[in-house]
């Protein structure tokens, strides 16, 4: 019921959602993060910690499953180079009831942002720069403590 993947390939949303629904759920909540096209970014690269990242994502998914009545928790995160409009991350929570699915989905993406080792590098006009962490992400993650 827990599915965690870190992959260089594009995220196949239809397949991921079909798998999440296949758990026999009454409610599936999803969140997809995409590379924003609106701030001059030409390319985004994601680096990760092989092994460490998968372990961290599994801990986040297991914590969600322990906290809410879930039938499934999915986290798929892309790494490597990607361009505006492409999906960076997809999370899904499947549950008998919508309150659990909605809360767990928000938890998965909020905690992933602070608890999993990924690093973003943006290229704007040929110049690459590592993205700074945001205080707002720490605040969003902390509200679940």
């Amino acid at each position: 019921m827990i599915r965690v993947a870190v992959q260089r390939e594009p995220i196949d949303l239809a397949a991921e959602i079909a798998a999440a629904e296949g758990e026999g759920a009454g409610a599936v909540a999803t969140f997809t993060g995409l590379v924003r096209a609106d701030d001059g970014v030409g390319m985004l690269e994601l680096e990760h910690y092989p092994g460490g990242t998968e372990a961290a994502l599994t801990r986040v998914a297991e914590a969600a499953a322990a906290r809410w009545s879930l039938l499934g928790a999915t986290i798929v995160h892309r790494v490597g180079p990607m361009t505006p409009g492409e999906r960076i991350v997809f999370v899904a929570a499947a549950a008998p009831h919508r309150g659990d699915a909605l809360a767990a989905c928000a938890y998965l993406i909020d905690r992933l942002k602070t608890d999993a080792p990924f690093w973003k590098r943006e290229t704007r006009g040929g110049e690459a720069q590592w993205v700074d962490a945001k205080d707002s992400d720490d605040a969003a993650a902390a509200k679940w403590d």
Partner: protein
Amino acid sequence: MALTVLYFAWVREAIGTGEEVVTPPAEVTTVAALIGWLANRSDAHAQAFADRAKLRAAVDQGFVSLDASIVGAREVAIFPPVTGG
């Protein structure tokens, strides 16, 4: 004892490698002490570790604070604050 140290993102770029195997002396028992000891290996290490407030760490794949113990650890990772999702 041999310890694998991993670097990511701009820490990796500053040091010029993503992984090295080191054997710190027995008195190096915390992540912070390890960073201080590694800083002596080269100017690149010293520069990468100049601002400790910008560094985060994991011991055997679990996030820890810099004052955490590395006693018995096999793998320590040093990196900037994470920015995934």
